[in-house]
């Protein structure tokens, strides 16, 4: 069943809701308003002709300056068709209803979206960080994320500045420049060496 037919079914079922079909990308997706996500999700699962019983993936998207989005990839094992939904939410207080009651796997997927982007999922049973430690500061996959300097006394980023050899390999910043792949050359010593360039780094840093 193609995206158009699914869109027709959704439109007949939910009369007051504005769905928007966006084509021309890799997967054409349907934009759903945030407040209707839970009922649209349960309709998509329960309806016989659609039967989307598998949530393949739930991802967060950060689109500065104004919106954040949650993308759902659905699949039907019965009818073998796929669907992509996108829900947009404002960036300063991102909040989306949970689909955990419809697909159980959304429990961890939404925890990951919360951990990485800070998107609050309403009525989630256990919304806490899943990848980072519970007392981590910030939401790492946001575009404006700055790593914290210390975590429990351990320095999070590399302490020493890049050495001259690394600086010489840096090209001037073009719009889509890739980061240079090599790290500092002195670290690639002969195997099994006991002397280390890191010996200068004091290692009594933990509590």
């Amino acid at each position, binding site marked *: 069943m193609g995206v158009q037919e699914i869109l027709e079914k959704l439109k007949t079922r939910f009369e007051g809701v504005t769905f928007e079909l966006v084509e021309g990308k890799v997967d054409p997706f349907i934009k759903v308003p945030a407040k209707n996500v839970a009922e649209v999700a349960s309709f998509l699962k329960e309806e016989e002709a659609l039967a989307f019983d598998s949530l393949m993936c739930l991802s967060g998207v950060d689109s500065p300056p104004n919106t954040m989005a949650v993308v759902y990839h659905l699949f039907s094992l019965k009818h073998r068709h796929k669907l992509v939904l996108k829900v947009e939410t404002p960036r300063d207080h991102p909040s989306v209803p949970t689909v955990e009651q419809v697909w159980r796997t959304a429990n961890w997927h939404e925890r990951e979206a919360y951990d990485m982007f800070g998107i609050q999922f309403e009525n989630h049973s256990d919304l806490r960080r899943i*990848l*980072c*430690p519970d007392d*981590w500061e910030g939401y*790492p996959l946001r575009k404006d*994320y700055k*790593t914290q300097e210390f*975590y*429990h006394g*351990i*320095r*999070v*980023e*590399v*302490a020493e500045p890049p050495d001259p050899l690394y600086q010489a390999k840096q090209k001037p910043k073009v719009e889509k420049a890739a*980061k240079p792949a090599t*790290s500092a050359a002195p*670290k*690639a*010593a002969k*195997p*099994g*060496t*006991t002397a*280390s360039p*890191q010996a200068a*780094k004091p*290692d009594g*840093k*933990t509590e």
Partner: protein
Amino acid sequence: MESIEKSFRDNILVTRVDYFINWARLSSLWPMLFGLACCAIEMMATGACRYDLDRFGAGAFRGTPRQSDLMIVAGTVTIKMSSRLKLLYEQMPEPKYVISMGSCATSGGPYWQHGYHVLKGVDLVVPVDVYVPGCPPRPESLIEGILKLQEKIRKDRLLAQAIA
């Protein structure tokens, strides 16, 4: 008292005993299973038949830190894991050694620049004896790391330190 202490310090008897103790210790380094990521596969390959670690005495990988005296940190250490790593290191009995295997354990590896949750080098939490670079290091590299550690143990003066 002085003369008794002097007789135990750095004489032929103590050095021979030290030699034998060190020889016994370096020929039976039991590593603790601490494979975290891809370097663990190379560590398993080193312990397997072709690059046999057991011929160096280091083939008995123990599951518990209480029975091991070598911790081969093989793989990327995340910051969440680093507190557990420190705990397990403290549970190992003395004398204990740490080999940092691979570039992730040495200095954060390919994640040194953008990895916000990667520990940039395991020597930020535990003291390391031998660093084995590579991504992953070949089994021969790891074996050379263990041999270098054996050289280090050969020079240890445990008995003389204990008495003096």
